[in-house]
């Protein structure tokens, strides 16, 4: 079976499971709202400087909520030994990895697009100005974050204190992707054109490519052991 077809099948499976029990998305969205609330206490939310830090705030919310999504990605497969069945299935490990990453990225994107208007209302940020480019940044940033997160989710699935280990490992490694996303998002929120920030966009694309390839190369070892 074609790797990509298998990956789509696995992504569809994950999304179908999520659609049926809404295990993650509700909790993650509520958690994102909690974080948005907490931010309002750390600085003056009506101040002019809010716009300058808006990208950073938003991506912190995304990454906190994102870790919740990623935590469940492989942990979900541990009951009834589903993971063993997945690994034993006649598909390459790369397909499992890509499928899971795709499902996680889509879930996270839905979450982000749901958070965006709420964020705009709460913090008076005009996010509609550059929406097309914003979407590009969201997709690239989310893919970088989820690729690392999905590999590390597989990495920590049989580890003690799994829920604690994942953010500890994911955040430092995703720093370049988050930095680039924050920089681009802040620029787009303030209505600037994307042109002077293309360097960051290139960084984001490079980050995505490198770690997708690395994940594809290493996931087989990780899953089979």
């Amino acid at each position: 079976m074609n790797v990509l077809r298998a990956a789509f099948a696995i992504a569809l499976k994950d999304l179908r499971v999520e659609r049926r029990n809404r295990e993650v998305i509700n909790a993650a969205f509520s958690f994102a709202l909690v974080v948005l609330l907490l931010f309002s206490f750390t600085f003056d939310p009506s101040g002019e400087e809010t716009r300058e830090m808006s990208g950073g705030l938003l991506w912190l919310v995304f990454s906190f909520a994102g870790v919740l999504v990623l935590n469940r990605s492989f942990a979900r497969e541990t009951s009834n030994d589903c993971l063993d069945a997945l690994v034993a299935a006649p598909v390459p490990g790369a397909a499992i990895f890509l499928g899971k990453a795709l499902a996680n990225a889509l879930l996270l994107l839905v979450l982000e697009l749901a958070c965006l208007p709420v964020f705009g209302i709460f913090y008076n940020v005009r996010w509609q100005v550059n929406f097309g480019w914003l979407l590009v940044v969201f997709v690239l940033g989310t893919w970088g974050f989820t690729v690392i997160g999905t590999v590390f989710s597989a990495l920590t699935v049989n580890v003690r204190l799994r829920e604690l280990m994942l953010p500890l490992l994911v955040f430092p490694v995703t720093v370049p992707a988050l930095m680039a996303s924050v920089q681009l998002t802040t620029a787009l929120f303030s209505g600037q054109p994307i042109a002077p920030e293309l360097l960051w966009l290139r960084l984001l694309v490079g980050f995505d490519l490198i770690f997708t390839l690395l994940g594809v190369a290493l996931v087989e070892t990780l899953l089979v052991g």
Partner: protein
Amino acid sequence: MKSRSEWVLPVLTAAMLVAALYLAFVWAPTEKTMGHVQRIFYFHVPSFFTAVVAFLVGMVAGIRFLMSRDFRFDELAVSSNEIGVIFTSVNLVTGSVWAKPIWGVWWTWDARLTSAFVLWLMYVGYLILRRSVDEPGLRGVVAAVFSIFAFVDVPIVYMSIRWWRTQHPQPVMFSTEGTLDPQMCLVLYFCLLAMLVLYLCLLQIRRRVERLRHETEGLRRLVHSA
């Protein structure tokens, strides 16, 4: 120490470190604007380079472990990465000590500092990750895969910092503009060598500790299963 040859590295390290102290604090000329504070740089810069070497060795050992499943490589990997964390800590602390009189603050979120801190956090994560896996085979695989991701990330973090505002003094080693005084340069390279020898010495000891720990773990398992 079992054999005489194992004494070679510790003795050499001690001699080189004493010589490095003499060179850095007495022989090297005093810097014009920063004064004596600048001398910390003879340990600050080499400790960072040594840390990077240690992490590189750790990653290569990790890859070798993934290919061969020979636990000697896993022992080498954990030893090297752990020592790398120590050297990164030395780098961060000496940098802080230097920054206080020169910049007036212990820490600033300058890009280079931030990326050194990110590096440190990643490898502390590596050590914690190892501790939370009981099964040696799985532990080796998980740790090796993580160390590959972490090390590949280092140049990307470093690149992204160049585009963020930086107030750190420009790197003086391996750069084309030789602005450093030749005498200072000599001391710097000697200190780098001393640090690398210190790394090898620590690696030798740490590997033996890890080997023994691995053996005791196996014996304990054997006792429990009997």
